[in-house]
């Protein structure tokens, strides 16, 4: 079964609307869930997600989400935090303890190996010692030798971003991308995200060995419009595309 990983920025568009969407989402259609902790500088997100961080920063309330986190954990849905190191770096260990206490399985840190490469090895070792999954985030600009090195330090799935930031429309090359990553990391579970454009692209990614997709910007637009039906239809549609492969 291919993985469907929806993304939500906590607190966007407001806590109650987000809760409404989350609780309506059929848990049997998704595999993991990715929660973005609002960032002061979501530098590798595109305009749609950037807005969600700004709004989320004003609304996020841990007490409100604690039972929601428990709900997903009790339903067997692994939760991953998407957090920027520029935000969590100074209180890294505290933040990981917090995530563990809320039932999270791991963390995606898009800026760690880009802007804080010299600290990456130590932080990944720390997470490994805590048995907390570090999800390597790679993009087209990640050099081959770093993809290999970071992947070897981890055993989790890999998040490969197709674009320089989310939800934008820069040409990408699916066949070359998958060929490269398959050669560098044979047999590894690869989830693609960051600006996937069409269902055809999802099909192609899965056909070429991808293990799943992460979707974010499109969902956030439906949250903004409070279009729950559109959101549920979209989840079902993408699930169908993945199941066809």
């Amino acid at each position: 079964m291919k993985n469907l990983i929806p993304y939500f920025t906590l607190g966007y568009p407001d806590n109650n609307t987000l809760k409404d969407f989350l609780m309506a989402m059929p848990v049997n259609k998704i595999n993991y869930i990715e929660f973005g902790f609002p960032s002061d500088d979501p530098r590798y997100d595109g305009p749609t997600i950037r807005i969600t961080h700004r709004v989320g920063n004003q609304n996020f309330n841990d007490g409100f989400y604690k039972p929601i986190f428990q709900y997903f954990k009790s339903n067997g849905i692994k939760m991953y935090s998407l957090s920027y190191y520029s935000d969590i770096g100074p209180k890294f260990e505290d933040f990981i303890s917090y995530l563990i206490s809320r039932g999270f399985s791991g963390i995606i840190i898009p800026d760690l190996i880009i802007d804080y490469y010299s600290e990456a090895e130590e932080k990944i070792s720390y997470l490994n010692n805590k048995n907390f999954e570090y999800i390597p985030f790679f993009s087209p600009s990640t050099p081959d030798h770093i993809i290999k090195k970071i992947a070897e330090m981890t055993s989790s799935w890999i998040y490969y971003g197709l674009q320089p930031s989310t939800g934008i429309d820069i040409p990408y090359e699916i066949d070359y991308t998958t060929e490269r990553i398959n050669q560098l990391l044979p047999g590894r579970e690869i989830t693609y995200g960051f600006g996937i454009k069409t269902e055809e692209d999802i099909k192609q990614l899965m056909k070429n060995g991808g293990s799943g997709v992460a979707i974010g910007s499109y969902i956030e637009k439906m949250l903004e419009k409070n279009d729950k039906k559109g959101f549920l239809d979209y989840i079902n549609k993408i699930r169908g595309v993945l199941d066809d492969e």
Partner: protein
Amino acid sequence: MISAINSEIIPENWYNVIPDLPEPLPPPKDSKAEFSSINLLNKILPKEVLRQEFTFKRYEKIPDEVIEQYEQIGRPTPLIRAKNLEKYLDYGGKIFYKFEGATATGSHKINTAIAQAYYAKNEGVNGVTTETGAGQWGSATALAASLYKLPAQIFMVKVSFIQKPLRKIVMNLYNGNVVPSPSNLTEYGRKILSENPDHPGTLGIGISEAVEYALDHDYRYMVASVMNSALTHQSVIGLETKKQLELIGEHADVLIGCVGGGSNFGGFTFPFIPDHPDTEIIATTADEVPKFSKGDYKYDLMDSAGVLPEVRMYSLGADFVPPTIYAGGLRYHGASPSLSLLINKGRIKSDEVNQEEVKNAIRTFANTQGIIAAPESGHAIATMLNYVKAHKNEKKTIVVNVSGHGLLDLSIFQ
């Protein structure tokens, strides 16, 4: 001079350094919260150039049509052993120079201009537009556009426009339309002029004007430097140099080039990065624009108006207005992200030289080798001369990129 048939020397593929960098290249980021300047690139760059901008492919096939034009404009350019200079310096090692001044427009700029104009033409756009400092890039854009029968609108930094009237004639001969920047052709130019009618102009302002013009006229913006796609196209310089050295059984111990935005330098040196780990690489720039020694390695705007994305680079600040030094091509406030990263990680060293050193270096080079180098290239020559003095007894093989000739810049010696 190395002689071999062109097809042996001109490469079949360009080289892209991204997959071989020591650390991940920080991607461009949007500078405004609710607007994607990265997405804007979709509207102003030819799609193929945009794809190459973000590709991780180590090699990109050079289209046959582009190779054909490379031959027409003088590629491969010569790699010449500077024996007269060696004798003059009493140097026991070897000095070679790659002479990009031998192209039709007299500089390396034509290498990417042809590629970008080719891709723009294939998309059926109305024309191309760009900014130019010293006029080398403007000349290259005008010629490349002319080769593909595209109109070209060029915004030339005002101070250079005044200092280098012959460049304007060259661009006009190639059917390019040239205006001094800031200009009245764009809203941004008019704004600058209303605040300061005597503004000398900067490359950053010129970029902003060209981007605005491209958006308003369905033109495509031609990227002179800084962005990765331009450096990839310029790799033809370094790939040819490697091949030429190989043909005569030489190995480069030291590579030296000058840096404005980084395109001739990156194109010349990056192809050596993956398999020449011991080769010393030195980037030289103007004392008056000390981006590597006094600039910060940070995310900053590529252009003054903030139309283009921010990139992480050594920068003196997008609003930096450099002194009106004669080397107009070195006045840019930043440097390409890949070059900046390699300098930050210590793989590439940097040097700065002042105007007097540069003038003397150009004189020395002219008197010994007969080549009158462009003021920008004079910086690389000055650094090379200093290097020889400092390493007199080491007998190294030094290769310097003379990125252009200075026959249209002679007024600096008046």
